[in-house]
């Protein structure tokens, strides 16, 4: 029996972009490796073609004229933006030595975007575990990100503004940006390939042993193609990692809830970022705004990721197009990875929900966007250059990235359509504040509609889930333990659990509470055969075991002690300990009243009995001796009177049973 210490190091403060490290039973496991891209909102957009508007923005000079950052910072509609290649906020690197990480578990393709920064620059030598769709779509998203950045290279790299003294003097939100010195430019394709070469593929419910100490297993989380929650367990302890899960019936396989039962600790991240926006309602809103704009002769721009919700949007539109008389309206999907994304989604049949899986056997493409492409209603292009420019017809609907509106083809459409109030931009990705995203495009005439579609668990669903799976302890980001700041009265938008969840923030180190602290030890059959159990009480038998404990790869085995060497042989250098005849074991309890009576018979009369939490203390006043009678031990404290101690010991032994 030994006490197990389990630590959780929290390297990201963003609740839906998690990066935590779990130290559990001599393994160091990184749970997700998400990249906080919200930092790019502080940068100017990267236009695909020269933008006179952006190039004419005034530079920033402090009011007293002492600081001149004209080249680095530009002012637009009353806000400051960094004119440089956008940079990302990385997970915390200083909290622990990242080279000691044994494995990285990825829960979905949105939570692996920081992988190259960890695997390529920290001395990481371990393995990354992810499902196949996570790897493939993650690769697409990384590739897209790299292409967006590399397509519009900016020689300039702004660093002066990061100077603490200078940053302090800047207006918000630049002033309040945290950890700006750790922000990094985007990685290269080479780094992506190297990072992804370390990924080992796993399937749902597949059990992977880590050093014999723990077993990890991914479970379907229902959020996106191949998205998973993880079970990390030893023989006696179980940690569940729930990240980005959904109970809604969308395209992925449904969430596996039952396997999360009986967890000692459940680490809960990736709940919906929009607890008050119901995805169904938002999807409806998306469709009606889209139809309304097209009917009025305007264009619709949907800034989105090239995988994920877009599949559901296209499916919804597939049904809606005819009912809204949009049959002649062209739908364009523009992304360097558009083709791959649409095709990949059709081939991961085993990772899809039941309905879509059955379609594969018909055989039919699981997603209806195949039909949209076939009928020319949906067209996809790698970029606005090339074929697109010749096919382009208005009014139309364009799906393109990046949802931050700072890079990607979307920047072009913002410049193109922003001036007309007939056009509408519909935000569907919940990761970025739409007002911040639009800030460098102000003043803007086009209509803006915010329909964030976040299918991840909401507070109501998570409360129900936790009631069902009943973990002993829940660990979650600090943000989930109080209502959102903008809706401080909404007590329904927080986790209320008993016992209360353990909150964490960026850089927190939590000692996870484990009640059980046992280790599994195997007994070899020969040794087991030699045991002679004797029944202590009905159903409980005990036996003495003399053996050698052999520990290897975190597995412990009791082996038979070799026979004592014959006298004739030479002493071996490493002689195993010789087990002498075992002393008899005692069991039973010492009943207070009969014991006092026995003491009295032996002339010990002055006994003061004191009740303690564990038993009793008998103070033999005349003899100045203490007898502690406890549930699991008896102590006789008797100074310099060995005969008395022996007598008392013998009296105690009378009440106990020898095994």
């Amino acid at each position: 029996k030994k006490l197990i210490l389990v630590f959780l190091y929290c390297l990201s403060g963003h609740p839906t972009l998690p990066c935590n490290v779990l130290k559990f039973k001599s393994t160091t496991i990184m749970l997700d490796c998400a990249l906080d891209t919200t930092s790019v909102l502080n940068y100017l957009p990267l236009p695909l073609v020269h933008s006179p508007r952006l190039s004419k923005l005034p530079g920033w000079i402090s009011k007293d004229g002492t600081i001149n950052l004209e080249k680095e910072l530009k002012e637009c509609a009353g806000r400051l933006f960094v004119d440089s290649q956008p940079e990302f906020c990385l997970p915390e690197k200083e909290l622990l030595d990242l080279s000691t990480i044994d494995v990285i578990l990825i829960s979905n393709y949105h939570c692996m975007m920081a992988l190259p920064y960890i695997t390529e620059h920290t001395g990481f030598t371990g393995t990354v575990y992810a499902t196949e769709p996570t790897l493939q779509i993650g690769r697409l998203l990384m590739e897209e990100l790299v292409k967006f950045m590399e397509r519009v290279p900016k020689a300039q790299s702004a660093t002066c503004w990061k100077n603490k003294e200078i940053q302090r003097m800047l207006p918000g939100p630049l002033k309040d940006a945290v950890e700006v010195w750790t922000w990094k430019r985007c990685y290269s394709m080479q780094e992506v390939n190297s990072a992804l070469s370390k990924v080992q593929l796993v399937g749902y419910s597949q059990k992977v042993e880590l050093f014999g100490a723990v077993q990890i297993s991914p479970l379907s989380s229902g959020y996106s193609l191949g998205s998973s929650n993880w079970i990390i367990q030893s023989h006696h302890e179980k940690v569940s990692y729930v990240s980005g899960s959904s109970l809604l019936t969308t395209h992925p396989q449904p969430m596996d809830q039952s396997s999360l039962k009986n967890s000692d600790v459940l680490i809960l991240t990736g709940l919906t970022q929009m607890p008050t926006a119901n995805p169904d309602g938002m999807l409806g809103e998306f469709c009606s705004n889209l139809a309304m704009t097209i009917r009025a002769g305007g264009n619709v721009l949907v800034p989105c990721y090239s995988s994920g919700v877009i599949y559901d949007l296209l499916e919804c539109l597939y049904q809606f197009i005819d009912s809204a008389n949009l049959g002649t309206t062209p739908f364009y999907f523009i992304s360097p990875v558009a083709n791959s994304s649409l095709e990949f989604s059709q081939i991961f049949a085993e990772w899809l929900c039941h309905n879509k899986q059955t379609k594969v056997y018909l055989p039919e493409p699981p997603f209806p966007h195949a039909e949209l492409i076939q009928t020319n209603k949906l067209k996809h292009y790698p970029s606005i250059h090339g074929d697109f420019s010749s096919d382009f017809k208005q009014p139309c609907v364009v799906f393109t990235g990046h949802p931050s509106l700072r890079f990607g083809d979307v920047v072009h459409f913002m410049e193109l359509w922003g001036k007309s109030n007939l056009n509408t931009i519909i935000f569907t990705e919940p990761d970025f504040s739409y007002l911040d995203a639009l800030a460098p495009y102000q003043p803007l005439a086009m209509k803006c509609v915010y329909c964030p579609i976040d299918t991840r668990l909401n507070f109501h669903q998570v409360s129900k889930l936790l009631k069902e799976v009943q973990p002993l302890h829940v660990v979650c980001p600090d943000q989930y333990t109080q209502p959102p700041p903008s809706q401080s009265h909404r007590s329904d938008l927080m986790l209320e659990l008993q016992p209360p969840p353990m909150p964490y923030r960026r850089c927190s180190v939590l000692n996870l509470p484990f009640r059980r602290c046992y280790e599994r030890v195997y007994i070899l059959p020969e040794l087991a055969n030699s045991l002679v159990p004797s029944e202590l009480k009905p159903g409980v038998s005990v036996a003495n075991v003399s053996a050698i404990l052999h520990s290897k790869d975190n597995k412990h085995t009791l082996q038979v002690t070799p026979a004592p060497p014959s006298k004739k042989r030479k002493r071996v250098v490493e002689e195993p300990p010789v087990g002498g005849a075992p002393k008899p074991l005692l069991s039973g309890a010492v009943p207070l009243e009969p014991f006092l009576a026995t003491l009295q018979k032996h002339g010990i009369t002055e006994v003061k009995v004191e009740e303690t939490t564990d038993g009793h203390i008998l103070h033999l006043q005349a003899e100045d001796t203490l007898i502690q009678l406890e549930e699991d031990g008896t102590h006789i404290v008797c100074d310099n009177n060995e005969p008395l101690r022996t007598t008392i010991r013998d009296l105690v032994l009378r009440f106990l049973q020898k095994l």
Partner: protein
Amino acid sequence: MEGECFTLLPRVCAVLAAGSSLPDDTSLEKLLDWFSELTTAGVSLVKDCPCLLEFTSTVVNSATSDPCILSFTLKLVGLLASSEDGFIVLQESSVLDLVFNPGHWEKAGHWEDPCVRIGWIQGLRSLLQHTKALCFFVQAGKQCKWRPHESEEHLQHGLIEPLLQLQTDTSLFVASAASQILAHILIFYQPSPSLTHNSMEKNEAADKSTNPSTTDDGRCPFKAETDQSFTTVVMLISEHLKNSLVSGGDAKLHHAQQSLRLLVLLLTRLRPPLRDSLLHAVTDALEELLMTDLTPPLMDVILAAHSSSSSDVRIHRLVSSLLSTKKPTDLLHAAAAFLRRGLHDDVHTAQCARAILLPLHIVTGQLFLDMDPADEDLCSMAAQLQNKSSCISIICTCLTNSPLITVLDPSFLPCSLDVIISSILLMLRLCSGDTLSVSSGCSGAVRNVIGSSKVKKCALEALMSVSSSPGAKAEVIKVFTLLLKYLDDPDSDPTVFHKSYQVLVRWISVCRDPSSIPDQLKQDLLGVVRKRVCDVRWEVRDSTVEFLGRLAAVKVHHTTDTEAQSACEVLPGGSSSITPVLEEALLDPESYVRASAISALAQTQAPGWQQGAALTQERSEFVVRLLDVLSEDTEGFPRRAVVQYFISWFSSSASRSSLLRRSVRSVLSRGSADLDWEVKVHTLELAKLLLDEALSAHSSSTKELGAQCVHPYAVIPQPVYTPHTHTENGEEDTAALLETLVEEGVVSVLLSGLVDCDRPVALKACRLLIVLREALCPPSHTDLGTDRETVAKVSFLLPKSGWALEIIKILKTKNKAEEENAATLRSSNCIDELKLGEGYNKGWDGVSGAGCERMSVCELLSNLGLDERVKILNQSSDHVQNSPLSLLQDILSAGGAHTQPNTQLMQEVIVDCY
């Protein structure tokens, strides 16, 4: 048919008495219904159907009768004895004593069966229709021992005691029937007020009592000989109620509950002296019961007592105790019931208003009730509101009943009306998750209502009903803002959208001055409407389109002296901004939406029609589009809406444009050929309008404009149509009119409708054809010489295909029948006379080829047998299957099959089935 039935009845009785199987388990009930109908119609069953008497005595004396047959017999005996004559016959044959002696049934071992007990009760209920029956009811026990093991003293009050015992029967049906009959006895035999109060009335009543057995209100007149019996019954029932209204174990509670239900029946129907004495007997018991769990049924009793004797101090005290209950939900329901009944008094009305508003006070945190935070009622209600399910139900009860408060005299109100309106608004805000304005003390309750569609709907309903209360106008802007938020909320349930639109229309009509609404709100409303007609859910699109139609129909006045204006003006651009939205909705894939769009467009265009505005090019194109919908739309709803559109246009337009005339003709021909019977009925409605127009013109010309009181398009009473005058000019007019109706296609529509396979279509067409015939065609037997000929010459071209063949078939059949009946009549046959073609002369056998037949309209109408046809069509389609004759035949055949089973036949049937 009745005679035929009576012939079959003896055999039916024999089958029933033999215990043969029945066609189905409702046969006996149907048979009883028929007997009841006969009795009500004045047939004396005892005299006309002696076999029934024989049947009853056979069954009653048989030891092996089936309980169902027994039950039927008990009910039948009651029915036979419901008339005094029948009663005497049955009593003389001593069947009555035997049948209503429970001891007899107990001895025979049948009393345990609830269907026998209920038969006994219902038999008694039928029997107790005259004074002799009451005497029998009270005396019966004295003459026969109904329970041999019971002592004499228990038998001294006739059948009342077993009846009272049945009131607590284990079968709920029996118990309920017993309560009903107890109530019937007291209500039916209670002394008429005329005899006790007013001497004038007393004389009138005395006059009446000499003739019929009941008074005008269907109750038994009070007669001296029943006095004693009735007093005994009253005494026993009062005593029974008093003793049963006690708390205790489950059995006692059940008993008390039954008695409370009976009391409610009695208190609402009894008249003062009897009601007061009954109340007096039970008041103490009711007071004691208030301490138990019986509040809901008790509440009905107390409130019923209060409504009848509000001045009684003891009743007043009971109401006070009821409204002091410590159970929040009971208090709320009691207060609501009190106000719903329209009861008002100085003390309790205000108390009820507070009780109803209490949940609103707590949840909204508005604290408008001026209550101590430690108040016991407040605390217990707040505790109840913490629980989700009870919270929703309490809030809904509170909101549903809050309109009751707004109509009260302001002196009863604990706060001003505008506070109540703003609390309802606040509740609606809370439901949509806006919790910023709420104090923290009730967060648990607030949490329960967030997102609840049920609460939202109740609150919207409440908001709608308070729109007419004084002070509502001041809240219009707030209401608008909130409703716009609701309509913009993507998570709202479609039913909430629908309700929100309804409330908005109501408040717009309250507002009266659309210019007082800020432009931004108007703009927002238009934006929301444009968005919602594109909604994914068809229900929302439909509600939106429907809203636009209603908006167009609502009239608002800027000021009292200005002309009414359509509420569409509340939208920027008025009706011109909504027409494109509605026209777009015509292409909606959901047929309901297309139909609503057509109706809404009719409403938006109605003002133009009324003012006789000139038709624009777009409007003409739109009419063509609608006609296309009528011929091409695959769903019935839009097609029905199109016909209704033209009905509205035709009936409200000030002038008959050529487009309207042309379109109506087109609608008539397309609508009558539709597959949907409702489209056809609507088309006939349109035909009726044309007919009305023509006939009213005709009647006004023939009556020299004497019918100015008749609205040109109102349904004109039948007599106006009759051709009173037959002047030469009048006849020419009539002929011209008929000619027009033929040309417009009205006659053709009516004739095709007549032979339609859907009964409602055929019925309507038949009625209209009769109207046409009565109004324009002179009866053939009148000798009107040339006049008649002028009208009769108006002919109609009957095609030799489709429905026309059916018409020809009718004519042929009728003609054949006439030929057979009287050869002399052939000379007067219209077709002969008018020499309408060779077809007829060949006996119509050759009528199948192409071409048309020209026929005289009037002769055609008089030869179609419209009067017989309308009689047949008036009967429901299952009248043959449901006739008593069919029932009797069924019983006989089922009995026959049972008694003489043809195993081989049955075997064949079974084999066939499989």
